[in-house]
């Protein structure tokens, strides 16, 4: 049987999925702990990308800059929680939707003010070649990003399942009041979740700069996909985000090739609608 | 005359958990039936199934001569079953009058009629002085009254009350009992979940005991208090 480009498309789709997963994991973690969708998630990614670009200008390769960017984003996320998101949680549920939305507009405006709307990319990065496996070609940056996504997912999983703090975070996500009664500092857990979720997107930003370029509005495209991925997988489920991301990557690439690139996002949105209408909690979400 | 509500061998599973596993209950017209049982026996799930909030996995619910199991929540309400919640579910941003009006609108689509009906009901449950207070600003006792008023405003044939006495001071509980008698006096049938047997005994006409999702007793309050199975469910197996 003639497979044609199918094997290549499958590989490309899965790799694209890994990148989406990398971005979606932080979002789903934050949601899981405190029921807040961070609509400014894409802008956190944008900040991480600018930071990575900054490091590359002083000679530090994105892969090496990754831990610093992740740390910086951790601090930034925790800071944003402490001075801002905490107040949103005291208000009605809409407050968090629109508050993080305001944050999106604000961060985009600041980026445009400081960096202008120019498109910038890291020059002379490592990993620009491609690996050949028979007829299949895999870009090195995609490969590195996929490995990064796997490492981040495993670290996150181990942290949440097997550490004291991770268990505290899970308890907080299940029942905030009960967690308080058990002596868990919910504010600290929330700040930690924002920090870790932001650190994940920091890692994503660093790895993304291997293939992609940054400009103030870069977050929009990725964030939209990340929301769909997270909702598809089930808000709050890290495994769900991973499965959802790979499904979205595959559907986007296969749909683009076999239907038409112009409408490649329609199957992705349809997939989301069909899944949540049949299973309102998403693929792996809890009710 | 047949019973108003007849529940037969109801089953409800959440995944592998059997919340109800053979729940049966009969409520005679105009009487107060008490539903009791230890924590986690499935009382609240039983109410959820009867009122249509969740679908039972198997079994039969006959209300006023018609089968209602699996019907949507709001349709069951329209048939004449109203309920209150164990954990109060108020409309936080609405005043007492507005919240009860929402209930009254079910039988009185014109807003002015509904508001008049709601005002009467609020007086009836003794919330008159607080009719313009927001739901979220009420005390727990008043929130429970508000829920009763909201349910009564739908002019139900059957009222399901879920632990309306919990957390009340003795004086408040006294007033609540008086209110229940007045409701019964209007010809409304009540099924009432209570955690504590003693509260129910003086007012209940009939007692159903639920344990681990199964009806283990049905009879008069006096018989319930002397039934070994009931005592075992509450106190654990007898020490021998």
């Amino acid at each position, binding site marked *: 049987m003639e497979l044609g480009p199918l094997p290549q498309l499958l590989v490309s789709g899965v790799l694209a999925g890994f990148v989406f997963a990398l971005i979606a994991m932080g979002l789903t973690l934050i949601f899981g702990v405190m029921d807040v969708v961070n609509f400014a998630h894409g802008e956190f990614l944008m900040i991480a990308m600018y930071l990575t670009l900054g490091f590359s200008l002083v000679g530090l390769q994105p892969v090496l800059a990754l831990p610093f960017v992740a740390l910086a984003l951790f601090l930034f996320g925790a800071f944003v929680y402490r001075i801002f998101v905490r107040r949103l949680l005291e208000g009605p549920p809409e407050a968090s939707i629109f508050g993080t939305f305001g944050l999106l507009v604000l961060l985009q*405006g600041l980026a445009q003010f400081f960096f202008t709307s120019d498109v910038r990319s890291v020059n002379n990065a490592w990993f620009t070649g491609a690996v050949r496996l028979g007829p299949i070609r895999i870009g090195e940056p995609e490969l590195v990003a996929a490995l990064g996504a796997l490492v981040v997912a495993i670290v996150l999983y181990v942290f949440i399942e097997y550490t004291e703090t991770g268990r505290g975070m899970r308890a907080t996500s299940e029942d905030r009041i009960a967690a308080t009664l058990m002596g868990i500092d919910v504010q600290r857990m929330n700040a930690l979740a924002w920090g870790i979720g932001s650190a994940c997107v920091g890692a994503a930003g660093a790895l993304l700069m291997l293939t992609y370029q940054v400009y103030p509005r870069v977050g929009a495209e990725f964030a939209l996909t990340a929301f769909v991925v997270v909702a598809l997988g089930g808000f709050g489920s890290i495994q769900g985000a991973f499965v959802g991301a790979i499904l979205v990557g595959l559907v986007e690439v296969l749909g683009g090739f076999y239907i038409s690139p112009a409408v490649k996002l329609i199957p992705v949105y349809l997939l989301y609608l069909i899944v949540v209408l049949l299973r309102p909690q998403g693929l792996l979400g809890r009710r | 005359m047949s019973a108003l509500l007849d529940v037969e061998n109801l089953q409800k599973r959440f995944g592998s958990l059997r919340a109800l596993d053979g729940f049966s209950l009969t409520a005679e017209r105009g009487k107060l039936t008490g539903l009791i049982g230890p924590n986690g026996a499935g009382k609240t799930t039983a109410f959820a199934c009867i009122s249509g909030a969740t679908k039972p996995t198997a079994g039969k619910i006959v209300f006023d001569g018609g089968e209602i199991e699996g019907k949507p929540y709001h349709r069951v309400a329209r048939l004449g079953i109203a309920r209150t919640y164990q954990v109060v579910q108020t409309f936080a941003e609405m005043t007492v009058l507005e919240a009860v009006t929402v209930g009254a609108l079910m039988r009185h689509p014109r807003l002015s009629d509904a508001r008049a009906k709601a005002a009467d009901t609020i007086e009836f449950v003794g919330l008159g002085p607080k009719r313009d207070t927001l739901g979220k600003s009420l005390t727990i006792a008043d929130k429970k009254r508000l829920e009763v008023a909201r349910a009564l405003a739908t002019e139900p044939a059957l009222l399901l009350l879920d632990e309306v006495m919990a957390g009340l001071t003795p004086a408040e509980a006294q007033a609540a009992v008086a209110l229940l008698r007045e409701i019964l006096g209007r010809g409304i049938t009540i099924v009432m979940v209570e955690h504590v047997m003693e509260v129910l005994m003086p007012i209940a006409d009939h007692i159903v005991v639920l344990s681990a999702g199964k009806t283990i007793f049905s009879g008069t309050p006096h018989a319930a208090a002397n039934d070994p199975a009931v005592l075992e469910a509450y106190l654990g197996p007898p020490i021998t």
Partner: protein
Amino acid sequence: MRSGLVILLVTCVAVAAFALIVQNPFLLDLTFAALLYAVLGQAWNWVSGYAGQVSFGHALFFGCGAYGAALANWHHFSPWLGIASGIVAAAAIALAVGFPCFALRGHYFSIATIAVAAIGEIYVKNADWLNGAVGIEFKLASAGLGSLQFTSKLPWVFLALAVFALVQLATIALENSRMGYYLRAIRANQDAAASVGVDARAWELRALIASAAATALAGSLYAQYTLVVEPESILALPISISIALVGVVGGLGQLWGPALGALTYAFLAKYVAAQLGGSGRGLDLVIYGGLICLIAALRPSGIAGYVRELFARRRLAG
């Protein structure tokens, strides 16, 4: 109810007088934009404010109206026919999409609205009968109500004012009706609402259909005003978000919220942007974003909610 009507009357008279006095196209344009956004915000408010189902897809309905008008012009029909068919199309889409989507709640619903609107946008970009990504430019006709084209801004301000008054009247009626009570109850607690016989999905669907129709009407006015429709500026996600933000900044589920939000938005988007955005460096975005953040953190009930609190406090004090 009476105070709402009085304020509405005073507002309309004031806006009309202002429009007749200033005669300045820039300010009239600002007024038209504010009125249009007030209509859009209020229509959105019915379903997302009163009923609490936050939609990020209203550009789809806006687009129905705009494309209805544009298609009528393209095929030499009366613009009024185009507006009517745009409204019908929006209502039909609202029915078809709302029915399944109202099974979803919270973020799942909001993201579903994004997905549906995005599918619509992609479809239009690739649909030849709507002239795809290129969009449709109106053919000029002699000015008048028949062609719905004018060489002055004044008729536009009055048209928008009429629609605004209509939408405000509808909202006053809503607040004092069974539907208004039901929507607020659904927003507060859908489960408890069902326990007193409220069929949440049916009422939400009615609200969405009305909302879609009003949004489409505003969309066709906008298209007739600018004389060009094109997917990027009619159907894209930022349009849906602007509509939602007008509703939120003003205050969700409040009669005067969208109007106040629209005034703020029009002023910031059109005027401050012109003054501060000179370098194209996004200072206007910074101010706007900062304002939304402040409102969300400090006054989640929006401007209208804040004004109300002030009045309530004064009443208590006096």
